[in-house]
């Protein structure tokens, strides 16, 4: 397969159309300004939309009882994704169905907002496959641009403004002065919940606050669905794009108490910049299909006792013993699955706070490095590994 792709690549632009069948996105080149482009921009009429499937994140189960019940029968959902680029900026539009518009900012303790995020692979000198889909992995950073649906919210902490934090009834102001105070508080209200993060693995995500990420995101609701856009530079301190930009997409459904890990996410998707030479390594890695026999793989999985720790079905080991594999076929690349079997410590999903399940840690820390507690299966022969990977690729929820 790799060879086939490499030879296809030599055909240049023609190949991106062929690859579209494998789920790659063709970014159409435009000469217009793309920074801060809205979902309603007429420029999107020029774009080519590709269907990307987003699978429920089930590797880690969180501890919110009601949310877990609400998401127990989650299915995968399809999003329509398109990209535009000019010399400097890449803009991506994601459209997905959502029957309810859930907006952040209500005076409420247990409601959540819809949202979406785009994850880009960060520049790294480390060789090897793409970063782990769950917010990167050690030495393989990602940049995540998050947008939540918001109403007007006064967020004094965001402005580092403490003088207006006082309850209006506790100021010594009256009449016009009090009205002025109210107006000042209202003028400080933030209407956006847009964040950019860098991460090297689940739990390591850190917000970029120094202005070094010049991204812009927005989302618009209409006719039972959201349309979200992100524009960002093709090259900046975090991302160094070539002709192919690997992107992963996540969406949150507030009506199902979605936030953090309670989301639907895609595997890595290749965004090929039309007119530029695609990056053969990235395209090949994302498009690689499993070569083994899934039926044999299922037997091999049972023979090697994988379900002793991993959930292949919900009836297997408790979810906190090891990452659940129930949707691993949906959001993982073949390269990642193969690597995880042969070198379990190459990417250790940090998973839970180690304190949450202290008797069954997923990893130990040796010399500052996470070492997986999973058995090293590098003794398996190549065909068995291929079979297991082929079976793992079948583990995913149906599309709703």
């Amino acid at each position: 397969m790799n060879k086939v792709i490499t030879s296809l690549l030599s055909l240049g632009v023609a190949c991106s159309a062929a690859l579209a069948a494998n789920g790659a996105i063709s970014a159409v080149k435009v000469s217009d300004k793309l920074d801060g482009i809205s979902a309603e921009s007429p420029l999107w009429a020029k774009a080519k939309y590709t269907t990307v499937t987003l699978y429920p994140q089930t590797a880690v189960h969180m501890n919110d009882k009601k949310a877990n019940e609400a998401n127990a029968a989650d299915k995968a959902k399809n999003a329509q994704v398109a990209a535009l680029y000019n010399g400097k900026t890449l803009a991506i539009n994601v459209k997905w169905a959502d029957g309810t518009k859930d907006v952040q900012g209500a005076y409420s303790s247990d409601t959540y907002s819809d949202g979406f995020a785009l994850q880009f692979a960060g520049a790294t000198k480390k060789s090897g496959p793409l970063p782990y889909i769950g917010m990167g992995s050690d030495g393989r950073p990602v940049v995540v641009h998050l947008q939540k649906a918001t109403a007007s919210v006064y967020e004094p902490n965001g402005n580092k403004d403490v003088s207006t934090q006082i309850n209006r009834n506790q100021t010594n102001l009256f009449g016009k002065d009090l009205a002025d105070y109210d107006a000042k508080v209202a003028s400080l209200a933030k209407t956006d919940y847009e964040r950019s993060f860098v991460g090297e693995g689940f739990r390591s995500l850190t917000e970029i606050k120094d202005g070094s990420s010049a991204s812009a995101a927005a989302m618009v609701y209409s006719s039972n669905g959201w349309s979200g856009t992100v524009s960002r530079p093709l090259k900046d301190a975090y991302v160094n794009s070539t002709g192919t930009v690997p992107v992963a997409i996540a969406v949150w459904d507030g009506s199902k108490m979605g936030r953090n890990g309670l989301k639907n996410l895609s595997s890595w998707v290749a965004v090929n910049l039309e007119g530029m030479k695609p990056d053969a390594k990235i395209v090949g890695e994302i498009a690689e299909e499993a070569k083994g026999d899934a039926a044999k793989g299922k037997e091999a999985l049972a023979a090697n006792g994988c379900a002793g720790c991993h959930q292949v079905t919900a009836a297997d080991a408790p979810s906190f013993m090891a990452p659940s594999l129930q949707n691993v076929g949906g959001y993982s690349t073949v390269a990642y699955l193969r690597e995880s079997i042969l070198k379990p410590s190459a990417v250790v999903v940090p998973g839970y706070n180690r304190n949450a399940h202290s008797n069954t840690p997923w990893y130990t820390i040796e010399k500052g490095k996470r070492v997986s507690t999973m058995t090293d299966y590098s003794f398996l022969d190549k065909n068995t590994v291929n079979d297991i990977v082929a079976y793992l690729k079948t583990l995913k929820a149906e599309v709703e």
Partner: protein
Amino acid sequence: MSKRQLAMVMDLNKCIGCQTCTVACKTQWTNRNGREYMYWNNVETYPGTGYPKHWMELGGGFDAAGDLQPGVIPNLEADYGVPWDYNYESLMGGMADSNTFHPHVSPTWGPNWDEDQGAGAFPQDNYFFYLPRICNHCTNPGCLSACPRDAIFKREEDGVVLVDLDRCQGYRYCIAGCPYKKIYFNPKISKSEKCILCFPRIEQGLPPACAQQCVGRIRFVGFLDDEDSQVYKLVHKYKVAIGLRSDYGTQPNVYYIPPTESPAKFDAEGKIIEGSTRLPIEELEKLFGPEVHDSIATLKAEMKKRKETGESELLDLLIAYQHSDMFRLDNNYYQQVAKENKRNPLAPVDTRYIAGKFTHAGGHH
């Protein structure tokens, strides 16, 4: 586990449910900006629904195997209660509705909705006591364990559990994970917030506001490893102060002296049933575990000893002749920590309560 642990002991025999602690905390920390509904310190009537409603049934904490248990995030209106306000301004301004004094929302629930109701039938066997609650600054915090962003930490120097508001993204798993439901979501800033044990006061040698304002003098504050501290004596020496619901597995660091005496019941004719007690020991066992028997036995033995001999260190402690007898904070300790960590060691503003092992005679004032 932190290097040292600051702890609080609350003597339930002395709590009169006046809510001065609640107000001290609220005016200091939670009367604004999305915290209006929060009570970092609350005093609830036990038995009762508690705050938030039925918090003991909302999950969180750990099972016997040490695995974090799923929990439920309470609803603001139904479980915490919306803080309502009245139409003062229209009344004062002579506006249209000024002839009626009414709340801005119709209140359906709030903290202490069932205050003083208790259980049992009046006058035969009714009973209740007050249960003041703050964050337990647990040794094994459920909130910390639940956080998928490592946004909650336990301070090495005194075990105070704090939210890193910079890392917090408002996911609220901490609320599900805390079995005491003592961490709250601030919807205005979309972050979780909780009792900070008044660390800015503690570091300056002042007890937390709830403890200093307590008119019943029920709260002791000190370091658990400081053998001269009141909390050490009550928790470790006499073992009369016990953690609340330690079966949740979080190793709470707020300890309670259980209600020791309760009046006898009346029979149908209104006569005292000799030897009976209104407060069922099962209720105390549920809250404090089997250790409650030893605690009550020790307290009763010391009371007897005091009656007979006039002497009891334990009762002298519990009487708390001077308010300053209840706090033993460690002045130079925090300054030493600040120095070691290259922070700014500020002088304490009040030296009445500081007499810890790091506090040098004469101080530096």
